[in-house]
Structures are given as C-alpha cells and as structure tokens.
C-alpha cells in the first residue's frame, strides 16, 4: 500500500452527536481502513460494532504502549506505560492487569456506588447554589461539568475538604485543552506529590475512603496506589465533564426525555465522547473483519463508529432513549471496560436531576452554531457552554 491510499487521521466531527462522516464509508467497505497519524505512523481503524468488540477481547491484541507499533495520535494520548507510571493499569494486559482490577472492583460495585448518591447530590447541589448565587447566567463547563467530577473523585479518594480547591485547580489545568505542556507537567507533578503525601498520611491514619481501603487491602504497593489514584483522577474527569455538557445541550433540544431514565444510556451511546481512547497494537498476526493485521501494527477501535453502526442500532444518528442502547461500547469492552462507568451513570443522573429541577428555565445562551465543540480533540465535548435562566 502506498501512502496516497491512506486516509489521514483524526477526522473532525461535524456537529453535536455525530461521529465523523467518514466512518460510514469505512464501515460499509470490507476489511479495515488503514490510516496515517499526524506522526506518519499507520494504524488500522475499526468502525463496525462487532469488530470493535472482537478487537477489545482478543488476547493477541495488547494495550501495552511499550510494544512496537502502539499508536500515538498525539502527545496527550501518548499513553504512559506501567513502566513509566507504576499502577497505570489501563496500559497492562492480563494477567498483570488482573491484580489491579481485582483490588479496585470492590470499591466500584453497584452497591458501593449507590451509597455515594447522597455525597454526589451534595456536590451537585452546592455547584448549583454557587451558579444561582452569581446571577442568571453561567458558563456550564467551568462552573458545573468540570467541577462535579473533580469533587466527586476527590471525595472518593479521600482528599480532605480543605485541599479540594487546590486539587480541583490542578486537575483543571491537567484536563483543559488550552493548557500548555509546561503547565500540564507542572500540575501533574504537584498532584502526584500531593497524592503521595496523602498516601503517607492515610497509611498512618486511615479513613473511610478508597486510598485507605486499598492500603489496608495490601494488594497494591503505595507506589502503585499513587499511579492508580492519578489514573482514576484523569480517566474520570474530562470524559464525565464532556458527557454532562453535551447531554445538557441534547436534552434541552428534546426536553420530553429529561425525566426518562433511559436517556442516560442513550446519551452515552449517542455522543460517544471517548471515541479514540482505546488504543491497541497486535502482538501476533490476527485477522479482523477479513483483514490480516500483522504483529506490530497499531489498531484504533473507534467507539463512536461502533455506537453508530446501523447493524447494531437502527437510525443510529437519532437520539432516541426509547431504543435499547445497552450493548453500546461507550465505555469500551473486554477486560479494560471502564471501571468508573457506574459512577458516571450516577453522576449524570444526579447532575441532570439537579440542573433541570432546580433551574427549570435553563437554556443555552447562544445559537447552537456558535457553540465551540472540541472537534479535533481526543475526547469529544464542548470548550464552553454559556447558559442562562
């Protein structure tokens, strides 16, 4: 194959919900699509639901970025390996991955997450109080969508209330697209140092939080625990914020679904914010969808592609909570499927209930065409969402 046959990657999304229009073309032709990353590296793009699931469950396909050929779409996705950051288990394959998952899932069971509801409600209520106190307009991304997941994760990790401002401020630098590399490195250094200090404190005086419990569980070393904490912090932040903001826009356009619980699964499917998150590399030759992928070739299973595959979801580009959206891969699939997914469902539920009940006249303050979407970002979302009431 010559380089002129390659499609350049990444594609822009045209608007609110839709995956890049190119995906449909990729999906309807046999085999996979070979694409060139900005770095010149080539990767295989996977856009059909069945094949995305096949890639994410195949033991011959690895999540470990230290393997030759692992895709690196940009600096921010240049995934760290567990060699660089001990505890960064999203980059580990089974069996190394198993120990981390096993240590963490007791903290993320349906029961555990349900028990967090009052705490999440308090955080959401407080954020809304502050918005209301400022007047009748707000910038929802900054004032709400980023604030809520940041405070939720710091509560979960057991960050003391007095440090929440520091914690929130640093995390914001880390997840804001306009931060410079230098600002980001500095924030991440500060956070890591802070988390290490927190681990030391909690090993002496344990509390009723995730870090204390994991320390007592003894399955992870303190060093791994600091990597795990950073991963939880980063993985759950911008993803959740983007989902909340996009959901507000979509629900305000179709208000009849606001009180329907099924809208959450459909919002996750419809927006598929983490389209480019699950990067992989083949470590043995493997055939996917009739395409031979050789060991050492990068693979990008496109979550938004799979979630808008008409063979899986009829009229995929319509927002329709009455369909059964279960089976979407917005949280990935296979052993790395999002650890935080049930927390996300809770956060979305509490966030929308809070916003639409307490601010029934909430509306987007600018015409939709003027909204600044993260068209070229790794995660799809909104840079800002001006609202009024």
């Amino acid at each position: 194959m010559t380089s002129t046959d390659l499609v350049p990657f990444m594609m822009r999304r045209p608007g609110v919900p839709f995956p890049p229009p190119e995906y449909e073309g990729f999906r309807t032709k046999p085999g996979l699509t070979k694409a060139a990353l900005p770095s010149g590296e080539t990767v295989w793009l996977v856009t059909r639901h069945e094949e995305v699931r096949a890639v994410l469950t195949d033991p011959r396909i690895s999540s470990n970025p230290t393997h030759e050929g692992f895709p690196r779409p940009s600096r921010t996705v240049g995934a760290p390996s567990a060699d660089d950051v001990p505890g960064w288990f999203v980059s580990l394959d089974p069996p190394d991955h198993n120990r981390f998952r096993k240590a963490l899932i007791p903290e993320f069971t349906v029961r555990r997450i349900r028990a967090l509801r009052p705490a999440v409600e308090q955080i959401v209520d407080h954020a809304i109080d502050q918005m209301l106190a400022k007047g009748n307009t707000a910038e929802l991304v900054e004032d709400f969508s980023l604030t809520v997941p940041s405070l939720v994760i710091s509560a979960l990790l057991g960050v003391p209330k007095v440090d929440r401002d520091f914690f929130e401020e640093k995390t914001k630098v880390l997840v804001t697209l306009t931060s410079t590399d230098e600002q980001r490195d500095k924030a991440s250094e500060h956070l890591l140092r802070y988390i290490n200090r927190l681990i030391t404190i909690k090993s002496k005086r344990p509390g009723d939080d995730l870090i204390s419990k994991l320390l007592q569980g003894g399955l992870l070393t303190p060093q791994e625990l600091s990597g795990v904490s950073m991963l939880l912090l980063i993985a759950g932040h911008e993803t959740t914020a983007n989902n909340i903001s996009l959901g507000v826009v979509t629900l305000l356009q179709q208000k009849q679904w606001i009180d329907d619980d099924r809208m959450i699964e459909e919002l996750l499917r419809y927006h598929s914010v983490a389209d480019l998150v699950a990067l992989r590399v083949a470590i043995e030759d493997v055939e996917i969808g009739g395409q031979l992928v050789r060991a050492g070739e990068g693979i990008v299973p496109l979550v938004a592609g799979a979630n808008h595959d008409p063979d899986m979801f009829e009229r995929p580009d319509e927002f329709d909570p009455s369909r059964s959206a279960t089976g979407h891969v917005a949280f990935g699939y296979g052993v790395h499927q999002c650890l935080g997914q049930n927390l996300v469902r809770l956060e979305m539920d509490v966030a929308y209930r809070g916003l639409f009940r307490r601010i029934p006249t909430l509306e987007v303050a600018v015409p939709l065409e003027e909204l600044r979407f993260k068209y070229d970002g790794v995660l799809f979302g909104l840079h800002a969402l001006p609202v009024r009431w």
Partner: protein
Amino acid sequence: MARISVDTGKCIGSAQCVLAAPDVFDQDDDGFVTVLDASPSGDAESTARTARGICPAQAITVHD
C-alpha cells in the same frame, strides 16, 4: 427456562449483568458476579440473555 452459569475467573466486576438482570445476577463483596437465579424463566430469562450479550468479559453462559 434456561440454565445460567458464570465464569468468575473471567469476570471483571463491571456489573453490567447486575444492571441488566438484577433478578438473576448480583455482585459479591469482592465485586465478582454471583448468580441469584440459576434457572430464570420469563422476563428474567430474557434479561439474563441481554446480560450475556453485554458482559464485557464474556463470562456468562446461557445453556438452553
């Protein structure tokens, strides 16, 4: 009626089954799947099949 079995060695504790079929599956304190009703029928059976289809670890088997 169908018979349900699970492979707890494969389970990654995603709780998809608990959400899709709460009458059939639960999670133990360690987060792994447990079967509440190994021979579901009617609605429970169909929700169990949904759970089988969405389990990310393919840890659920429905024996017809």
